[in-house]
């Protein structure tokens, strides 16, 4: 199991090894904030960027 603290609420987040990839978005089970898995080894979490509308061609 890999674990890290939620940057928003400090809650401990545990993820089964191999069940996630870098760049994936998860929701903190405690406070529900959107988090981005910025690295796998070691597991590092950051607040996910804001959603922005409007797209290219």
């Amino acid at each position, binding site marked *: 199991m890999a674990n890290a603290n939620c940057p928003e609420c400090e809650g401990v987040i545990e993820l089964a090894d191999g069940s996630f*990839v870098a*760049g*994936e*978005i998860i929701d903190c089970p405690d406070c529900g904030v959107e988090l*981005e898995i910025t690295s796998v080894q070691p597991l590092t979490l950051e607040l*996910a*960027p804001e*959603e*922005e*509308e*409007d*797209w*290219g*061609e």
Partner: protein
Amino acid sequence: MIVVKVGGSVGIDLAALCQDIGELVRNGQQLVLVHGGSARTNEVAAQLGHPPQFVTSVSGFTSRRTDRETLRIFEMVYCGEVNKGIVEMLQAQGVNAVGLSGIDGRLLSGRRKEAIKIVDERGRRMVLRDDYTGTVEQVNTSLIELLLENGYLPVITPPAISDQNEAINVDGDRAAALIASSLKAEKLIILSNVPGLLRNFPDESSLIRQIDAAQVGQFMEHAQGRMRIKVLGAIEAIEQGVRQVVFADGRIAKPLSAALAGGGTVIG
């Protein structure tokens, strides 16, 4: 002065449009043309072994995955083949066209999205960082007016340029809407491969003829996918003073004359 946006989808007859523009310009109509090139870009990208990938945003919009290699192919088709093809056809109609991308003279500048959130093919929500898409925020109207005053017809294409001086893939309809409002154009005409806004897509007989400027907002439910983005552009243009936005058919013989005579969906 009017701004005309012609899409890049299959079925649109650019030669017929250029002929129509030739006649209108000879009769004194001043205009700026904005064009797309998506269908052709998909073909060339596949032939070059970098087939197009489309990503769906968490809120349901689909758009072209634009990494650096895709951007290069995008420029080849939009700025090279399609832009110069249109300019060549307009010159043959006696119209002194000048083709420009949004990068030239910072004609279209804006912000590149640092990261975009998508749902990948396995349903996972992902953050994508090396994507070169963004929003047009500013139009270099002085360059457009300089060309218009000297008898040239600007033919404008994405991409735009970001404040970090990177080329960015931006939506042509939204760019055309901003160009129209920045130039205080009377009309924005958007030609695509459908007759206009359809109450129930793809039934072409469900064409909506007229929408009052005030009600265009709640029209959004009728619009699906790409058409939602087009309507978003129309709403912005109307809010910034463009008197009329027309969605019309780009596949017919004199597409622009027909739109100016009230064909398609007239908003405003």
